[in-house]
């Protein structure tokens, strides 16, 4: 793995990786091997906008799982539409390895779920300072005015409800090392279809 590739996978760069032995172990293997064997400790949501119809079932499933009611405004995954609905894009936390939110938190309220690699928020430790919402470059950790704490995707303990609710397979839960392959596969299929038609 070259330095450039490391940069791609870990925005924090090689220094961050050294602090993360599991990551090194993970990526010292051949990428293909990791994908096919699915042994990576990192799993993540993979979102494929070309399959999204904008139905928002993911938002309802997420808010139901976390709030016990249907409330898209409190969903940790959001779908955005562009050009009169030509494109619908699901968006959520990608569980950065070297998470800005986690680093920025002054009370240590954000921690790593050792089973999933998800970054979780401890409600008892969070003081609602919103430093994490400033630090996160993607906006995927949000302040909840009702609870006074921050909300983010927790991968539902390994059974993401948005994935279960998506009717088109636009959101999948895959080995973190496979996100590129999934898109490549889809793209390859489209390429072949394009050639056939």
């Amino acid at each position, binding site marked *: 793995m070259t330095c450039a590739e490391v940069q791609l996978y870990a925005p924090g760069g090689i220094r961050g990786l050294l602090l993360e032995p599991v990551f090194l172990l993970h990526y010292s293997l051949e990428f293909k091997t990791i994908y096919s064997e699915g042994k990576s400790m990192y799993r993540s949501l993979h979102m494929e906008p070309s399959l999204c*119809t*904008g*139905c*928002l*079932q993911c938002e*309802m*499933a997420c*808010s*139901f799982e976390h*709030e*016990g*009611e*249907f*409330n*898209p*405004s*409190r969903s940790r995954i959001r779908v955005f539409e562009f*050009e*009169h*609905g*030509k*494109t*619908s894009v699901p968006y959520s936390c990608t569980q950065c390895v070297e998470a800005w939110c986690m680093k920025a938190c002054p009370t240590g309220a954000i921690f790593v779920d050792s089973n999933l690699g998800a970054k979780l928020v401890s409600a008892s430790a969070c003081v609602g300072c919103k430093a994490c919402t400033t630090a996160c470059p993607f906006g995927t950790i949000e302040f909840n005015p009702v609870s006074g704490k921050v909300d983010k995707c927790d991968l539902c303990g390994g059974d993401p409800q948005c994935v279960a*609710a998506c*009717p*088109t397979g636009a959101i999948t839960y895959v080995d973190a090392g496979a996100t590129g392959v999934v898109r490549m596969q889809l793209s390859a299929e489209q390429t072949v279809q394009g050639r056939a*038609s």
Partner: protein
Amino acid sequence: MSWQGKILRVDLTAGQVAPEPLNMAWANEYIGERGLGTKYLWENMDPKVDPMSPENVLIFATGPLTGTSASTSGRYAVLTKGPLTGAIACSNSGGKFGAELKYAGYDLLLIEGRSEKPVYLLIEGDEISLVDAKKIWGKTVWETDEWIKTQHHNPMLKIATIGVAGERGVRYAAVVNDLHRAAGRSGVGTVMGDKNLKAIAVRGTGGVGVKDPKRFMQVTREMKNLLAQNTGGMTKYGTNAMMETMQEFGGLPTRNFQEVQFAGYDKIDAKAMLKTDQAGHRNLLTNKACFGCTIACGRIAHIRKDHFTIQNRKEYWHASGGLEYETAFAFGPVVGVDDIDACTFAGYLMNEHGVDPISFGVTLAAAMELFELGIITTEDTDGVALNFGSAEALTVMAEKTGKQEGFGQVLGLGSRLMCEKYGHPELSMTVKGQEFAGYDSRALQGMGLGYATGNRGACHLKHDTFEVDMDDQSGQGKAEPCKTSQDWTAAVDSSGLCMFTMGAWGAPEFAAQLDADSEGEWTPQRLMESGERIWNLERMFNLAAGLTRDDDTLPERLLKDPAPSGTAKGKVNELEKMLPEYYQLRGWNDQGEPTTETLDRLGLG
């Protein structure tokens, strides 16, 4: 439970808004949305009032399942006394607006009076205001949507608005939400414009709960799977797959219903939309779901940039809502046009200016026949030759109607008033003043009965006799399926879900979802009874408004001129045979009035 228990009463004359508790007794009897809205209308206005007066009431109603994770849960209905028909008008729409209204904490909006100056209603949770709409009066639907979001720095607002057509009194103006979903029919947008209400912008951050969450999640998941397996090809082809079926059957109204088959159908049908042309252009870009929908029958299309309609108009080079069956029918066969880009552009214009495409297309078709007969000439029509088949006439007149310019003002009257104006009422293809949808009553007998007895005038969405009509082309035995499906559709329309699920779900499937959602016991029987109650209350509204059994009829063309081709060649609609049987089944007297026993049975006495 999924009701917020709160409605918002908006008095435009006084400029005041006031929340009130939802009348749960009415919700229990009328389910929600269409039914509940009808009850609120009935209790809050005199059906005799002029639709274009401050005394008319305009209602936006959600259903019990609106905003839940049940599939297709984004529906809401707009109800009022219709300016096109003088009858009850009830139009429903998908998109995201309906669910947003629920999340904002309101089950229903009841709008009364007329504002002195143009305003829009802004609902951001508990903060509600009537805002001066001076800067957006005269703007299109699309401009208004963007302007309000920008003005309030809130891209999450969901907006239902009228275009210029609604402001300037086109009798069939639509309320358009989320840019290209519409409560399209019966002129509900006209009444909104008459009230000087430009738009309703809503942002909701509250939640919607259900009675039995665990059971609800389980049953809705099962229903979603069932629906996914029974979409009838609508995901891939949209509703426009129907065009080929109607063409083959000979039920595709063509050139103002003079014919029932259209040679150019395959240039504008679902398959044509999917085809890549020689220049590499494909009309259809993608499909699109309304809120919560598993099917995603919505079409997102684009127009060829070199097409004559938009080659010098870059503002239309973007994607937007594409052709569905009814729009394809109204811009295609009925006006004889087979240019897919022109049809798509006409659809853009309808959404942009807030016009019902069905009423527009069928009105234009009548104008084309008047032109063909020499009753009107290019002197009347701003120099545009209104020949059947002219893509130019279609698109120019669509824009003129939307903007209320020139001959567009005549087309804006609707087919009935326009044909009367020129002394040829027989050319108007309407029931109670509302134009037909794309199914010919000679080929589809039960459809004809449904049109004739439709409470909002000719409409294909308030009953479903499709299968029995395809199986047997006589008027025999059509009254019962017509009546039953009218009641059933009324129940479906009142649930907050979309009627396009009806192919997958029957009464037990709807009842199971509603029972897990709402207080009380919801059974298939209760749903059917409620549907019948709703249908009869709509009928009572119309009778009180002055409509009679004479309004339950079809144009002579469908009763006397035989279908010239297709499987129903030589047939006319047998309404005379079907109607008495229908009244009897309904428990109405021979004047089409519900008997005392019927009213008592339904709790309407």
